[in-house]
């Protein structure tokens, strides 16, 4: 009895996810729109004055993208849980952790990548100093996959529940704290003329570790939640 290889199964899942995204391509803009909304609200609350905004621009960007990611966590597993697809993943001859990893990658490509692409535009609205933009983008490139992976563990734990909304946010936020600190902190350090590389390296190291551990944890969590 031979089964599909890891690559075959992974490719099938990725193709499926990209097709699904294409069918509902309007939904792909929602996280970016939400981040834009948060940016607008901050600008309104702070009075719109360039000096004031520039000081907090990188922090507001990070919070806006983190919150947008948090909201999109719901779509990670819920659809598959509801129509029975998640069961088939558990029953498949490839490791569940592998399927979870591919799914998180697909989810990141469709929710976080548009956010990163929209960042220069949003940063301009907040008058982010241009020399901070590269560090901001680097921190987001390393940080958003971390947020997706950590978020996957939380999403997996709550997959069996009825709409959980605030609870998912409450569970995920403590796990997000180190990512936010090093992510926003790296830009803050570069703003003060200090070296941002240290913080970025922490993010990178965390990403490597989480890439291995988070799918395993999320797979275990799915089995627990669906029992």
């Amino acid at each position, binding site marked *: 009895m031979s089964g599909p290889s890891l690559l075959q199964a992974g490719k099938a899942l990725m193709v499926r996810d990209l097709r699904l995204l294409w069918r509902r391509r309007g939904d792909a803009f929602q996280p970016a729109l939400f981040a834009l909304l948060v940016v607008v609200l901050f600008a309104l609350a702070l009075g719109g004055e360039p000096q004031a905004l520039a000081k907090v621009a990188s922090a507001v960007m990070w919070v806006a993208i983190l919150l947008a990611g948090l909201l999109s966590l719901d779509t990670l597993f819920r659809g598959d849980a509801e129509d029975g697809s998640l069961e088939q993943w558990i029953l498949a001859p490839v490791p569940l952790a592998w399927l979870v990893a591919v799914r998180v990658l697909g989810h990141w490509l469709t929710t976080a990548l548009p956010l990163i692409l929209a960042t220069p535009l949003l940063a301009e609205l907040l008058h982010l100093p241009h020399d901070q933009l590269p560090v901001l983008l680097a921190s987001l490139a390393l940080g958003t996959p971390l947020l997706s992976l950590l978020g996957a563990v939380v999403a997996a734990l709550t997959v069996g529940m009825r709409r959980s909304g605030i609870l998912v946010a409450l569970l995920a936020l403590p*796990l997000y704290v180190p990512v936010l600190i090093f992510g926003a902190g790296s830009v803050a350090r570069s703003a003060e003329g200090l070296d941002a590389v240290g913080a970025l390296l922490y993010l990178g190291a965390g990403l490597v570790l989480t890439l291995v551990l988070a799918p395993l*944890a999320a797979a275990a969590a799915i089995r627990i939640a669906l029992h």
Partner: protein
Amino acid sequence: MNPVLLWFHQLGSPPVFDRFAARWAPWCHGIALAVMAVGLWQAFQVPADYQQGDSFRIFYIHVPSAMLSLSIFAVMAAYSAIALIWRIKLCEILAMACAPIGAAFTVITLVTGSIWGKPMWGTWWDWDPRLTTELILLFLYLGVIGLYNAIDDRRTAARAAGFLAIVGVALLPVIKYSVVWWNSLHQGQTISLFGESKMDASMALPFWLMFVGVQFWFAGSLLVRARADNLRREAGKDWVARLVAQP
């Protein structure tokens, strides 16, 4: 079979645990109150701190609470790990009973930390690395409690919340380290809660008394909560009916 192992195995049976908890909880609470009373009395005998004056005395409540808030989280994660690997129902109950107690001690730590800091900082709150980490710890506790209450099936709920506790305990050092790093970004260090004062020999006695006292308090409260959860889960069974029927 080894008598100790046998006793552990028997303890897993709900009626046996009920009797055990009912018997020992009052003792734990009693010892805790006695030890803490002596400890607090001693705390007022110790001379006032040369820098912080009498406000330093709250250290004797703050620090044991802080240490306990962290150790309870570790204990909760340990019980959860045992419950997940060996599927022991009693450990699920014990793990979930730890959460509210740990959360309470975290709140005590935050409040006493705030009271302690007010004379020094001039404000009720400072983003001190220790207090900030305690605050995030509180969120972790609330998350575990929230997840446990949100899932209908009790065993799945305990397993999911327990898994979260394990993930939390693994990430806690990372969180602590990141908060310390974050705090070091600030220009101008705020006065840390400990400042110049180191633990002097005369301070040791009340500190250790309080430390032991709160541990007993934790043990007593854990037994009470676990017993209550145990009874609730077994509500339909005969032995519970007999227990309730007794005068």
